[in-house]
């Protein structure tokens, strides 16, 4: 029996692969399992290849994991197109469509899987339901029969989905499901491959994704305005909000472009409301100038960037963590915009609420770096307990402060000055992108510019002490450390746990506050370290480099970084940790230095 099963399926658009994954996911939630479902598509709007990965476990799952326990190919061309996203090893059970005509010993994979089975999926769909559209339910039957998923929970899902389409359609799909089970039972697979029964949590958990959770959290935090523009993979945040924000007395603008979207958010914030926008890389680039305006005018707002592969259009449907530099240095001038990053779908709730709190308290734009995986993968999550959350509102001047002559940008010790909004008598001021004095009047004085820059940066200093925005796990005195962030943090966490189980002394730090870099917190973490590995999904290893810009790092400060759409599996991180925990190789093995070329180059001038 297994406690953790990873299923990968691929087919072409009409095969219903993703729909089968979703059905299995709902069934798993009903049964009380935890799971993560990730989907992957070609860039076609309809049709084309599609795949999904489903990791089902009896305990909470932190990431979609690496190698598959079960691989299902409805045709080999499509399966192979997903390459590294659906890795097969010698321990995988491979199931494929008999109609592909490939013999089990001739399947086009580089490794020899543990078990290979072909199944007449198309034929079973046709004979049982009379339509190829029932293929996905045959697949569900096979999974149920071979791997022990709850028959009733899956049937309940099929009834929910097809019940509305009439008794004939429903009966056909139920027969397709039964045909799959029957085939599996007639051609059994080793019972050790079956998943263990779920323990508890039946019916309380739900299936959701990071974009939906983000929208829920925004409303919980008191967001009263959203302005944005459709962009993959962030659009669903706007879609969820447009259904509900009105009910909370708020409003939403699908603007004519990304710039107008965030400009309207700045306006709503100026008008005194909590406001947010959401976008992805290309839109984020466009929002730069207005982010700078919000910093300068000290207006709170939340800007979610659901990262995808870049630069430019890049890989719109794949996750990447390559917008960190763009977020940290997101506009011209000397300014810092705080960056937060969630580490899971359910964590998106707390991080979004915190983003609003920081924005309001410090009167600053806050950037939330989500990514396509957290945003669009489906997780089975426990109900979010909001009782411990506090909500922060911006500091409004008292009646006495207003009566005594109000200065919007008063130079206070904290750097935070009470803020008014139109409609508030005695509080009128000029907000501006131009540098200003305490009263808000435009100035080009170098002295005032220095003071205002200092105010705008100084006010963020308390963030650098926010230890609650850092997760630390492992042996606190270990000489080996790992840092990871965002959706990849769950991968690193699993690897660190496995490493510790195998006797390696290691600790992990996951910053949810990515920027400003909290120097002291990093220094504390580094104190025991000889070596540190930074694990992230970008080609340059952007966090690895950003940390070095602000903090003295351990002697060996190495990066494990890959471009998006090349998932980092826990096993890959574990392997690096094993390497790093070995004693250093003898110096003789090091390459001798070659003569530098630049001296000769210089002579040419």
């Amino acid at each position, binding site marked *: 029996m297994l406690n953790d099963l990873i299923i990968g399926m691929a087919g072409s658009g009409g095969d219903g692969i993703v729909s089968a994954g979703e059905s299995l996911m709902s069934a798993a939630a009903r049964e009380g399992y935890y799971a993560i479902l990730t989907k992957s598509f070609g860039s076609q709007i309809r049709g084309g290849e599609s795949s999904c990965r489903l990791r089902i476990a009896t305990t909470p799952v932190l990431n979609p994991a690496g190698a598959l326990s079960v691989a299902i190919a409805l045709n080999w061309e499509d399966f192979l197109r997903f390459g590294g996203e659906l890795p097969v090893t010698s321990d995988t059970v491979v199931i494929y469509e008999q109609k592909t005509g490939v013999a089990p010993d001739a399947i086009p994979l580089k490794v020899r899987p543990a078990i290979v089975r072909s199944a007449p999926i198309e034929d079973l769909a046709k004979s049982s339901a009379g339509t190829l559209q029932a293929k996905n339910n045959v697949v569900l039957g096979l999974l149920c029969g071979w791997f022990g998923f709850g028959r009733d929970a899956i049937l309940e899902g099929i009834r929910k989905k097809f019940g509305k389409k009439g008794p004939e359609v429903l009966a056909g799909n139920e027969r397709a499901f039964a045909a799959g089970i029957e085939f599996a039972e007639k051609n059994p697979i080793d019972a050790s491959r079956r998943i263990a029964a779920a323990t508890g949590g039946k019916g309380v958990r739900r299936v959701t994704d990071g974009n939906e959770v983000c929208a829920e959290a925004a409303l919980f935090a008191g967001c009263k305005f959203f302005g944005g523009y459709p962009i993959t993979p962030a659009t669903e945040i706007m879609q969820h909000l447009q259904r509900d924000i009105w009910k909370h007395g*708020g409003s939403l603008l699908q603007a004519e472009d990304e710039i*107008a979207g965030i400009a309207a958010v700045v*306006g709503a914030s100026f008008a005194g409301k909590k406001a947010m926008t959401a976008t992805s890389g290309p839109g984020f680039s466009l929002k730069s100038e207005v982010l700078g305006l919000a910093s300068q005018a000290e207006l709170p707002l939340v800007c979610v960037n659901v990262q995808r592969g870049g630069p430019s259009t890049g890989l719109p449907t794949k996750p990447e963590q390559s917008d960190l530099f763009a977020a940290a240095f997101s506009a011209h001038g000397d300014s810092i915009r705080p960056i937060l990053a969630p580490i899971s779908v359910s964590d998106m709730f707390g991080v979004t609420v915190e983003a609003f709190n920081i924005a309001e308290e410090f009167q600053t734009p806050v950037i939330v770096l989500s990514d396509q995986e957290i945003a669009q993968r489906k997780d089975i999550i426990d109900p979010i307990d909001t009782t411990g959350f506090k909500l922060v509102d911006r500091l409004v001047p008292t009646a006495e402060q207003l009566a005594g002559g109000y200065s919007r940008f008063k130079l206070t010790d904290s750097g935070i000055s009470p803020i008014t909004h139109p409609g508030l*008598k005695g509080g009128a001021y000029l907000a501006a992108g131009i540098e200003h004095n305490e009263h808000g009047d*435009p100035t080009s004085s170098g002295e005032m510019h220095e003071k205002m820059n200092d105010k705008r940066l100084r006010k963020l200093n308390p963030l650098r002490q926010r230890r609650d925005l850092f997760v630390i796990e492992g042996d606190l005195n270990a000489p080996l450390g790992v840092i990871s962030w965002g959706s990849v943090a769950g991968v690193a966490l699993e690897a660190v746990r496995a490493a510790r189980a195998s006797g390696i002394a290691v600790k992990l730090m996951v910053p949810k506050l990515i920027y400003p870099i909290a120097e002291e917190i990093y220094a504390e973490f580094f104190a025991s370290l000889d070596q540190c590995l930074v694990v992230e999904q970008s080609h340059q290893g952007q966090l690895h480099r950003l940390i070095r810009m602000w903090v003295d790092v351990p002697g060996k400060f190495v990066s494990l970084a890959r471009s998006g759409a090349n998932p980092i599996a826990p096993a890959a991180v574990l392997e690096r940790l094993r390497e790093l925990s070995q004693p250093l190789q003898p110096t003789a093995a090091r390459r001798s230095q070659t003569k530098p070329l630049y001296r000769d180059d210089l002579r040419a001038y």
Partner: protein
Amino acid sequence: MISEPIDPGCGAAAASTCHVAAQGERGLAPTAPASGPAAPTAKDFKSTLKPIWCPGCGDYGVVTAIYRALANIGRLPHEVAFISGIGCSSRIPGYTTAYGFNTVHGRALPVAQGIKMANPDLLVLVAGGDGDGFSIGGGHVPHAIRRNLDLTYIVMDNQIYGLTKGQLSPTTKRGAKTPSSSYGSMEDPVNPLLYCLAYGAGFVAQGVPADLDGLTKMIEEAIRYRGFSFVNIQSPCVTFGDADNQVKVQKTRMKALASLGHDSTNRLRAMDLAQAYGEELYTGVFYRNPNPPQTYDAQIRERQGALKV
């Protein structure tokens, strides 16, 4: 559509501005109600900040007309949000006592729409130059018009980039020689009046600072119009502008539409007249929709009310 405001957005000071809520959908009244504070005067809208404008700039006349129009409307300065972009004319909110927001180049309209959506009780004025509105911010104009929030957009059209010292603007005439067109402009100018009429604006007018009374009245009418209103002001640039477009010349060139017998409810006739932009200097209201459609902000309130939990 009269509905109760959801939230006057006045926070702790709600009591001091509660008369706003009593004034119905637009929060507008010809004069402040007797029970409320004394009606403001033009002087109440003038700030102590000294304008950066050159002596003789048309924008002085524009800001004076705005003070007077706002006084005539009767809303208090703190109930007015005055939003602008970047340019000489975009400095204007700072010269008033309203809540001002001098935003970034070309984005005054989207910022203003966010403000009005967040708090529909506010009187929202938007201002900027021809470059701000029809070049860098040109993409926002049609959408602000079709969205039809109740706000007033004032463009100070001087056919030049003044703040950067005299380059071509989107309304500069073909052939004009400027520091960015030594051999003459090779492009036709945009026609702000015709654009806005074609995009569907419900109120389109043109004024000149040379006719301060006319300009004041026009701005007041624009603010009173329920929906998006556009006022193009031929505001001469005394430093880089054409000699034949200065205040003195305007006085001889201007032709009041009213004196020509123009029916401002006739949109097609308005478009016909607007074609003369750049040749004839017509002043007054080109078009006023006699049956203004429901505004976007009114729809927001309606939806919020209907869905309230």
